[in-house]
């Protein structure tokens, strides 16, 4: 039986006046039923474009998926025609957007928006869909769901809107839920609630989740697998434990080191990764991370490292040898996260 979602060598490029931006450049991963995959990286590392590419939502004609396969239950999404993709969207693969303040349509009642995908995909009448929408609102923890379903989005707070968005995404009981930075626009207290809700919903519906974030702390507890992206490429991929406790790539070390830590902190300043993310038009030669990497050597600027399996499915793209890595004492060691 084919995996729920298998992405192979996906590449999405954008044509701009200044040249071609390789936003996603050869990304591969597999998502199994009911698993949570976290995609981590800085702004502009290609996380969101990866997600959009899976649903074929990249804005054309500037953006183009130039190669690769996105196999959903064995069928290549990239080869489907428009109506087949539309049947997939919202029904089998649903998406939660970053900013709940702008992702609900201001002229429709919340209940009607949640019900829209049910009308579209399940052939429900508007009334049935509205009833179901109220149940969904109840499920995501909105009090007085029947009354609130009749409200307009501007009558909801940010946290409630994100709950409504989750209800909307779950309406058709999708196989995959893609959440693009679902908590970035929210207060820290609300963030925790929303993540908890997503976990709860995941257990309840059995949907697989792809959560995109730039905050490692957010995903540490919830993700099964973690994919770290840098400049459109995967630099590390592994289970949550592997990536957090035995990180292989210096970029991941940098991400982990730059997390605020409550437990072992000696009131020191945060330790950011030096430098800026590279321009995706003029990507540095060799390993894209080498200009910022404290352990870079001659080979790194000359030759791009392959993504290789270092240890039972734990992949990394780095020239540092395993023996050397032990000597460098990377900062992972766990415990410090969250």
């Amino acid at each position, binding site marked *: 039986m084919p995996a729920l979602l298998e992405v192979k060598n996906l590449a999405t490029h954008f044509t701009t006046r200044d040249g071609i931006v390789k936003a996603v450049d050869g990304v591969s991963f597999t998502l199994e039923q009911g698993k949570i995959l976290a995609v981590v990286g800085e702004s502009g590392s290609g996380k969101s474009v990866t997600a959009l590419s899976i649903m074929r939502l990249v804005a054309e004609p500037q953006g183009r998926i130039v190669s690769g396969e996105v196999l959903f239950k064995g069928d290549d999404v990239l080869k489907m025609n428009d109506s087949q993709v539309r049947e997939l969207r*919202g029904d089998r693969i649903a*998406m939660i957007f970053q900013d709940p303040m*702008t*992702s609900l*349509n201001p002229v429709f009642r919340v209940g009607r928006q949640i019900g829209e995908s049910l009308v579209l995909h399940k052939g429900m009448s508007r009334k049935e869909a509205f009833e179901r929408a109220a149940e969904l609102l109840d499920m995501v923890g909105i009090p007085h769901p029947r*009354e609130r379903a*009749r409200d307009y989005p501007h*009558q909801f707070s940010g946290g409630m809107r994100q709950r409504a968005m989750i209800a*909307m995404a779950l309406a058709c009981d999708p196989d995959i839920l893609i959440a693009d930075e679902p908590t970035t626009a929210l207060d820290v207290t609300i963030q925790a609630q929303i993540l908890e809700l997503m976990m709860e919903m995941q257990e309840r519906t059995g949907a697989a989740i792809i959560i995109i974030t730039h905050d490692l702390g957010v995903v540490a507890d919830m993700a099964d697998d973690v994919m770290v992206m840098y400049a459109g490429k995967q630099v590390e991929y592994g289970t949550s434990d592997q990536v957090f406790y035995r990180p292989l790539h210096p970029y991941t070390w940098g991400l982990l080191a730059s997390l605020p830590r409550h437990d072992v902190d000696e009131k020191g300043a945060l330790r950011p990764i030096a430098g800026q993310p590279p321009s995706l038009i003029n990507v540095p030669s060799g390993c894209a991370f080498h200009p910022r990497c404290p352990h870079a050597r001659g080979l790194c600027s000359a030759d791009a490292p392959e993504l290789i399996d270092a240890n039972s499915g734990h992949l990394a793209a780095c020239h540092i040898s395993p023996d050397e890595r032990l000597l460098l004492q990377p900062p992972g060691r766990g415990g410090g996260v969250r």
Partner: protein
Amino acid sequence: MTTDHRDPRRPRANGPTDVAGHEVRAEGTTLPTLPGDTHAHVQAETATGSRTLWGDAWRRLRKNKLAIVGLVWIVAVLIMTISADLWVPPLFGDPLAVNTTPGASLQAPSLTHPFGTDKLGRDVLSRVVYGARVSLTVGVLAVSISLAIGLLLGALSGYYGRFVDSLVMRSADVFFAFPYILFAIALIAVLGPSYRNVFIAIGILGWPSIARVFRSSILSVKENEYVDAARAMGASDFRIMFRHIMPNAIAPIIVYGTMSIGGAIITEAALSFLGMGVQPPTPSWGLMLSDAKSLMFRAPWLTIWPGFAILTTVLAFVLMGDGMRDALDVKMKD
């Protein structure tokens, strides 16, 4: 409109609606309102359980005195023209009845003829009232034609962009390149001057502005995340266009359309004045002005009343449109 006018209407965060509702009422009543409006306002607020955007807009519109004056005037003119057959002929005479008896023509305003009579002895009040029929019909029909063409082309242009956009917008530029009245006269010259052709010509000339306004509105609405969300939900282009983008992009069109009715009325009057519009003996304000221009000093009532009618009616539509702009503006704020 001042900001404090709108603040109470801003989207409210948490909390039950009735609490929010109370706030609105408390603040709302302290704001300047029309005499006698306060009570109705409070009632409306209590009656509506869930507030709608259009309901909010209406409440804001009601606070704008000038817009209400415009609305009242438009409604009054409408009622007057619709019921004209019932009361105008018996009281003031048929607008088309020529009276050749000596002394019947060019009578100054009196009790029997409150607005006086014209050189053919026809009652001016009667002609002004029936002239409103022509003006309003032309105004509404012309703008409907402009809307039908302009909305469709503007929507295509804004949504699909690229080639379609260039084609539509360059055609619009061609229309803009000609002086408006001259173009209208040329069109009428081709179609032949008649009541029907007047609104067809005005309607055809009006689409480029509507298309432009709608296009730009769609371009800005299209960038909203809820459009992406709709696409991610599996909605088709058609559905996204008509259900998600259009309702959010329509506000400027309502404003512009309302004002355009005023503009169409003026154009009709201008064309009729030049003899290229409604043909005699049909009463039209522009035509009446044209007939009266040589008698302006001997019988000033012949120009004053139709002129006043044009001025007030057009002004009413513009005030209405302006008020609607303020009333619908809140969406642009959040």
